[in-house]
């Protein structure tokens, strides 16, 4: 076992023990963490609901109410550390652009899509724009028994989002409002003008070139007496403010009687960005921010005694705006590249500074124009359910139709503006050299993106108990069509599915499920596949011999095995048809006229099929100590095969083909998940509870028809998907003798202080052949979260600690690599190698030009991305039992913080997201609010 794995398992075991010890002494209750699920309750499963007691599948669930203690404009980010088996990897933090990457039980394929299928209220949709207050539950369906009815859409797991509906109860109205602010976690740190100029001179000297800055100039940078000809600009400070305001408000109401059940919600969310407000400075700009309105009306009407209509209507409208006529990424890019002494923000005459290489970020914000985008989402469905108890008790038929769509259009208004470079003439006059010119705003309104999804479903359900025998049968048919802008053909699926669940004495459970599905992406005759699964369960605690035991209140052992698939296979669509394509033209004639060229495209794969996965899962659920302590653990082994791969090992070159993609790849993915939760009783003044979740998933490429490599370490097969390959840095060259005695580094001439690499193949040369696996892929293998909560009378406190391990991050770009592309230099370059600091240098010798040796992809720039974050803290005070005259049933005031602390890497990057340090920074958010229930 590798050290890292041992480390993970140690954390895992320790955490579990800690929880159990903790829990065994606990006597009290907790208001926040989830309650034990009574056996009679129904849980959401694929295409329906099921008695919790009869479930044999692996799934994990979080309630919407638990998610409202964090803040993100994207609901996906709130799931971080909440659902056993679900890994959330943020991909950015800009308000409105913060969609994370989601992984259900790790990664199972190197070619196809890895995202779980998202089903909102029974239909494929996206869920990231929803708000926590409209969510009843979000569940991750993990094993074959849970996902087989989704056929070849289930292999990556299914995220089941269920929105709140009305219930048979008096009207309840809830209003809450939160205000707060976000601050950046880290910003990259760049040197000021004096530091820049000093190091630049050193870098030039290292290349044998003359210094650019004289002693007098260095002095001028140091004392800052000449801000125009010796400027020292901190572009981050110039363009960003330290906090970005946030406010959210929402109102919902819920209730119902014999005829109608209803849930309604209206919410508004407003997050400004870190960019300074510019609107008052010019007509050519706009303040930056993101705003979203959500609404939902879910109504269930009993049309007759047996016929129910369920209308689901949810939507959102979002507006995003930025100055500078683009997303903020180009602005952040510019701020992190311009040397601090390149030019002042403003020249002495008030004009914008600039030069031939760089535009002025502040000028861009104020003068370059504006960028707005407006998005709308609409999710609608109508479901009719007819109970047919008069035919036979327990029988029901239902049908549903859904239209979901999303539309976003972009409006860009841009212009150019003048910047002036300053110089001094021989006579000492200030000379202005103009770059760019002032133009009027030009609009560009024709870009948009959209998708729409139409789905029709029909169901027959039969749920009845015959004495000790309980039967629950579901049969369904499904058709859906998903149209995405920019794609000529909609994505379509048709399928039949079913589930047969049998329980004997509520003790012996067996569950067969299957689907028969087809997709348009495969050739006629190869379109349909059957995906069966079986799950078994044994509720040991129901056995007569267990009745005497005092330890377990409930103990269920589960197992499942089955086949599911993934039809997001990668490669071209319709690869079963041989396509021809245009290639570069050839030129003929005295006029050198081009004549188009057409060639055979990638060779068709007439038998192309979806990825298949055999999923095996065993687990148990237990409740102890009067149901106060709950334990649950799962082990899974997924064998994915028929992954598309290029047959590099079988098709000879003299075939002359553009190699097809064949279904020859295989991946093994295995792991464990565990949940330990303790929650006491409601009736004490002091209560607390705790929940611990840990999970581990690790994949291996078993087959991919990889081409033969000269050296074994160059093989990708047998490693994790996405394994990075790079040079292994083994320190800095000490001196010329060290260079002479080391293998020849062939990228460029090396000098003392350059990074020294390991000669992996011992051939005396460091070259492309020495690229070996270094570090880990960007995605983690392990995470654990600890979620304690406390209550004393009206005061409640909870927090969520989230630790992640098993991935690597890579440091490139100007936040790390000094002087690249005429750029600036970051603070970490102060640790550079010089002859005097050879023993303690932490950074290679500086060079003024892009260094072909030091800035190669190597382990020097790689670091473990393991981290521990205090994801969330919330402190609240609840006023209840208010006099009726007030008209308020209860009120709760609270303050919370999201991503308060992070322990992990040392650099200015967010270890969690694989974005560069020079992108929009990770944010720490503080909110205060009040929640009033009427």
């Amino acid at each position, binding site marked *: 076992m590798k050290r890292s794995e041992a480390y993970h398992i140690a954390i895992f075991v320790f955490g579990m023990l800690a929880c159990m010890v903790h829990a065994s002494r606990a006597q009290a209750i907790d208001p926040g963490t989830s309650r034990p699920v009574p056996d009679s309750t129904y849980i959401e499963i694929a295409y329906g609901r099921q008695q919790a007691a009869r479930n044999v599948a692996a799934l994990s669930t979080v309630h919407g109410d638990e998610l409202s203690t964090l803040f993100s404009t994207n609901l996906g980010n709130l799931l971080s550390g909440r659902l056993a088996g679900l890994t959330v990897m943020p991909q950015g933090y800009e308000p409105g652009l913060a969609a994370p990457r989601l992984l259900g039980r790790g990664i199972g394929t190197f070619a196809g899509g890895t995202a779980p299928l998202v089903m909102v209220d029974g239909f494929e949709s996206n869920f990231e724009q929803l708000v926590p207050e409209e969510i009843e539950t979000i569940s991750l369906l993990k094993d074959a028994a849970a996902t087989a009815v989704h056929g070849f859409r289930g292999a990556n797991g299914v995220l089941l989002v269920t929105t709140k509906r009305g219930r048979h109860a008096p009207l309840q109205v809830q209003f809450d409002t939160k205000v707060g602010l976000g601050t950046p976690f880290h910003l990259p740190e760049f040197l000021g003008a004096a530091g820049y100029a000093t190091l630049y001179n050193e870098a030039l000297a290292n290349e044998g070139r003359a210094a650019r800055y004289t002693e007098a100039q260095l002095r001028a940078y140091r004392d800052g007496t000449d801000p125009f000809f010796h400027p020292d600009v901190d572009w981050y400070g110039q363009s960003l403010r330290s906090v970005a305001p946030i406010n959210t408000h929402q109102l919902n109401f819920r209730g119902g009687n014999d005829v109608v059940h209803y849930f309604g919600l209206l919410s508004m969310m407003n997050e400004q960005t870190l960019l300074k407000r510019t609107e008052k400075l010019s007509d050519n700009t706009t303040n930056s921010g993101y705003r979203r309105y959500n609404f939902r009306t879910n109504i269930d009407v009993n049309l007759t005694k047996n016929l129910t209509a369920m209308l689901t209507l949810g939507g959102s409208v979002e507006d995003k705006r930025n100055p500078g006529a683009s997303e903020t990424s180009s602005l952040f890019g510019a701020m992190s590249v311009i040397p601090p002494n390149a030019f002042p923000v403003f020249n002495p005459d008030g004009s914008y500074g600039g030069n031939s290489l760089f535009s002025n970020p502040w000028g861009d914000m104020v003068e370059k124009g504006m960028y707005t985008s407006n998005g709308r989402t609409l999710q609608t469905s109508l479901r009719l359910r007819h109970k047919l108890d008069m035919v036979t008790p327990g029988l029901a038929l239902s049908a549903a139709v859904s239209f979901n769509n999303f539309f976003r259009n972009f409006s860009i208004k841009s212009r150019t503006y003048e910047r002036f470079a300053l110089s001094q003439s021989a006579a000492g006059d200030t000379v202005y050299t103009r770059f760019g010119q002032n133009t009027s705003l030009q609009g560009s309104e024709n870009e948009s993106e959209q998708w729409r999804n139409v789905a029709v479903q029909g169901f027959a359900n039969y749920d009845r108990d015959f004495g000790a025998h309980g039967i629950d049968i579901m049969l369904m048919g499904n058709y859906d069509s998903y149209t995405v802008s920019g794609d000529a053909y909609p994505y*379509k699926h048709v399928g039949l599915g079913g589930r047969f669940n049998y329980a004997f004495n509520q003790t012996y459970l067996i569950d067969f499920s299957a689907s028969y599905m*087809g997709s348009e992406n495969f050739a006629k005759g190869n379109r349909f596949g059957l995906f069966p699964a079986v799950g078994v369960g044994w509720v040991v605690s129901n056995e007569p011999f267990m009745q005497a035991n005092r330890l377990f209140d409930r103990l269920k052992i589960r197992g499942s095995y089955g086949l599911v698939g993934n039809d997001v296979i990668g490669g071209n669509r319709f690869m079963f048809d041989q396509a021809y394509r245009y290639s570069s033209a050839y030129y003929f004639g005295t006029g050198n006229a081009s*004549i188009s060229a*057409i060639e055979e495209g990638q060779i068709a794969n007439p038998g192309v099929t979806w990825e298949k996965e055999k999923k095996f899962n065993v687990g148990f659920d237990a409740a102890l100590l009067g149901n106060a302590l709950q334990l649950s653990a799962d082990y899974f082994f997924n064998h994915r095969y028929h992954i598309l791969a290029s047959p590099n090992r079988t098709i000879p070159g*003299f075939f002359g083909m553009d190699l097809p993609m064949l279904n020859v790849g295989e991946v093994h993915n295995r792991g464990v998940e565990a949940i330990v939760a303790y929650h006491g009783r409601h009736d004490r003044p002091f209560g607390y509870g705790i929940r611990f979740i840990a999970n581990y998933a690790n994949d291996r490429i078993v087959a991919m028809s990889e081409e033969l490599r000269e050296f074994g370490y160059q093989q990708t097969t047998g490693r994790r998907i996405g394994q990075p390959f790079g040079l292994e840095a083994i320190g800095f060259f000490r001196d010329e003798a060290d260079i002479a005695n080391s293998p020849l580094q062939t990228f*460029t001439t090396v000098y003392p202080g350059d990074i020294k690499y390991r000669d992996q193949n011992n051939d005396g040369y460091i070259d492309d052949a020495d690229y070996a696996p270094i570090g880990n892929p960007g995605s983690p293998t392990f995470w654990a979260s600890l979620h304690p909560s406390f209550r004393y009378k009206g005061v409640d406190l909870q927090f969520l600690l989230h630790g992640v391990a098993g991935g690597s991050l890579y440091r490139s770009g100007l936040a790390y690599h000094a002087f690249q592309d005429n750029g600036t230099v970051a603070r970490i370059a102060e640790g550079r190698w010089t002859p005097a600091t050879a023993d303690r240098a932490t950074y290679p010798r500086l060079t003024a030009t892009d260094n072909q040796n030091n800035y190669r992809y190597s382990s020097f720039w790689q670091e473990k991305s393991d981290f521990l974050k205090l994801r969330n803290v919330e402190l609240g005070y609840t006023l209840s039992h208010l006099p009726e005259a007030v008209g308020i049933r209860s009120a709760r005031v609270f303050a919370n913080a999201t991503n308060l602390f992070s322990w992990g890497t040392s650099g200015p990057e967010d270890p969690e997201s694989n974005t560069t340090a020079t992108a929009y920074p990770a944010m720490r958010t503080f909110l205060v609010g009040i929640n009033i229930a009427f």
Partner: protein
Amino acid sequence: MKRTLYFGVLLGLFASCEDTLDRDILTALSKERVIHSYDFTRNTVSAVYNVLPDGFSEIGGALQATVTDEAEHTSENSSVHRINNGAWNPYNNPDDRWNHYYRGIRKANQALANIDSVNLDMYRLDPDPTQQQVYGERLAEMNRWKYEVRFLRAFFYAELIKRYGGVPIVEGIFELDADVGDIRRSTLASSIQYVLDECDSAARVLPATYGGGDLGRATKGAALALKSRVLLYAASDLYNDPSWAAGYADPGLIALPAGDRVARWQAAAAAAKAVIDLPGAGYALHGGYPALFKTFNSPEIIFTRRSGASNSFEIASFPIGYDLGQSGNAPSQNLVDAYEVLRADGTAEPFDWDNAAHAADPYASRDPRLAHSVLVNNTAFKGRAVESWVGGRDGPGANMASKTGYYLRKYVDENVNLLTGTTSIHSWIYIRLAEVYLNYAEALNESDPGHPDIKRYVDLVRARSGVSMPPLPEGLDQALMRQRIRAERRVELAFEGHRLWDTKRWMVAPETLGAPLRGVEIRRSGDSGFSYRVTQVETRTFQPRMYCYPIGQQELLKATGLVQNPMW
């Protein structure tokens, strides 16, 4: 009743499933559409032409010359350095063209199969005489396409043979599940014979010249000239002397069976003469030497790789001191030394560093082709003198300056302005008349030494307009003449992709490709005086196994019938 209705709806839903998943319209370019259309099929022929590599960035963005003693590529990141330092093998060969040319061969075979399926019924069935005329013209044109494609396919095979020796001859179109177990490499002799036969077939049908719109298509002369080159290679030492691969089990793959050498040289000479004498082609040496490399339309050009206008070669080749220049393919001292010096009496002598006059002013009175091919220090280029001296704008000290002290001139368009992004048309000449002259002289000198044509054709090349080098001396014996022909070939065809193959077929590679690559260090003394010192830029590696490229290890694994070349 209600129940039946519900189930009926469900069943109906599913019954239409299979059809629901069909696409109603097709937007892709399907095989059926391509092979029946005249226009699309014409485009598939263009695609076969497109397989011809652009010699301006043949290996790792560099000229092939940079893996010979002609030049050194400035960028450390180019894969050509792997060849120069010997770090290439069956797993990693920067010039592994196996897949590239077999892909071209497949395209050619597909075009040949498809041309016959073109549907011309709209003309054929129209009694209108003009339509009937179009029909006739198109039939003839499509027939010509077949022979253009066969020539190109032969060209691809010739390129494969140069690199790998005998190769599998593929005339069909493989399906995915084809059995490859018993596919073998053809012997060198039969591979060469295949190319020769294809050249003959193509030459019988292809026209000697083309009208305006078709200039650049394969001609009869191109087919005959390829044949001349292949026969010259076949007669040369390498293919007739497998001693370098002693003990190799399949000598037939890398050498010809023992036979009449003289007859082989005679065949080569006759093939070259057939091009020279080709009626109707109008071949003649181009008016000026430098202008030849700026045009695609010259009586000297027999076959050239056409391209659109670009400036990427100038970006790659301009000296580092010029805007956006990257120094690129830097000529070597080894090559520069090969250009003769003109004496005052009008005769020429070899350049010699031991000759004090030569060493003091090495670029004076040289064969004019030196200045047309190599940018030497202190010559005017784009409005200033090139500063290759130590500390000069283009000299050592500047990052990415040429390591040899020279920059490339041949093919580089001085008038391109990189800052404003102007471009010009670059056309890579594969075969030109001067090569055929030298092919003829070389073969004739081996088969019929003393024949007057030998000196005559070498002198024609030397005397070309703008070069005007004095004729060879009278009375050279066969060995001396061989030396002169080889020297002439070296300077006349410098950087044009010949040196690598010539040094190998002459079996002089150890002392040429394997010789240290030299450059010059120039120091400026005073205002305009310079002193010169020859330096060693790089040690080069040549081992006998490099006479033949290795076949990729992947390929041996996949097609078990293939045999590796000697000593790899």
